[in-house]
């Protein structure tokens, strides 16, 4: 028992980042929902409208921050849920790297889409 606790790990950094991204998401998610459901109705969304919004640098950057924060918060949340279920060893390593890869792909694709919306093609 006691030996197990002797190795030092920084579990706290991920915990802290989860809280930081939470704070970012409170603002961005509420803003996103409000803008695209109440100010602009979802049914009336067109590519032209999306492009007009995404062409503004501030909005574009906000959406990128939103994407990264949401991906980290969501994927890290899933990982925490799995760890709390008691996975360890190989399944844990698979989950960690699998989820890390999934988030990188999601962020990459998200940024690609964001550029396409803003009118650049990559």
């Amino acid at each position: 028992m006691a030996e197990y606790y002797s190795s030092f790990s920084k579990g706290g950094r991920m915990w802290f980042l989860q809280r930081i991204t939470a704070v970012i998401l409170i603002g961005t998610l509420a803003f996103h929902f409000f803008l695209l459901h109440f100010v602009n109705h979802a049914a009336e969304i067109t590519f032209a409208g999306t492009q007009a919004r995404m062409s503004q640098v501030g909005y574009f950057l906000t959406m990128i921050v939103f994407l990264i924060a949401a991906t980290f918060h969501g994927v890290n949340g899933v990982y925490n849920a799995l760890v709390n279920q008691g996975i360890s060893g190989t399944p844990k390593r698979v989950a960690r790297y699998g989820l890390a890869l999934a988030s990188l792909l999601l962020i990459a694709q998200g940024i690609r889409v964001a550029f396409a919306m803003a009118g650049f093609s990559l």
Partner: protein
Amino acid sequence: MSAETDAETEPEAKAEVETEPEAEVDADAGTAADPEPADTEPEPSVPDAGSESHQERRMREKDERALAREEAAADAAAQDIETVEIRVYRYDPEVEGKTTPRFDAFHVPVEEGMTVLDALIYARDEFDSSLTFRHSCRQGVCGSDALFVNGSQRLGCQTQIADLDTPVQIEPLPHREVVKDLVVDMQHFYEQMDAVEPFFDPDEEPDDSFEEQRQTRENREKIKLSTRCIQCGACTSSCNVAAGDNQYLGPAAINKAYRFIMDEREGEQRRKERLEIVEQEHGVWRCQTQFSCTEVCPKDIPLTEHIQELKREAIKEDIKFW
């Protein structure tokens, strides 16, 4: 100056009063009202939560239940009900025919002020001497009779039969191996307590070994509640995370670490080491703030609050770059 002397004597003194529920209210009110005789020193600043503390909540609920009990007693007198049915979990791996867990019902004559432990003792003494459970002091000090009563972890000696719905279902603490009947294996719990190295270790000791190592009143107030732990294991048994993760230190052990980390007399190096123990991956970070431990703690220790404070303490150390 009781507040400044040995940290560990206080819970006992308090707990002894708890044999008589009625007396307890007065005793607690008394200690809160005049902790010191009129003195030049200002009152210690007790952190005020701004609303009802757990202790106040329990006291209020206790009063409400006492009132309900009086009414029920009046009803019972009218209807002439004398016994209460307790349904007790039975299991004995060593006796053929008892290896499959079952519930036995006992009809125990009710007396005023009867606790769950009293009912169990009566059932064992009068009906079935093989009924097995741990108990010692019968007054909420030894911490050996934490049981799962009507779906919640409680101390048998501190739970009034009259406050419970009948039949009263009594089971061993969940998430521990059952040795026999209501007796569970506490080894793992004690190992977790041990893992936080729960002993006082100051940097410098007084030259005269008989001299007291004094603590400020404010600091005593800060760790007061955490010193109340009687290691009954109710908190850890109620914890959903501890159930799934055997490496998780659990609320009791983390609270024990808190008791020393927050003690101003703790040595600098020792404090650092102890913080490192609780900020392991399976330390404080596993806590999901479900508040189960805080709700079942028979000593009203704000466990979740202490765990959260240690998380912040660990983060402070971690992001400190100056």
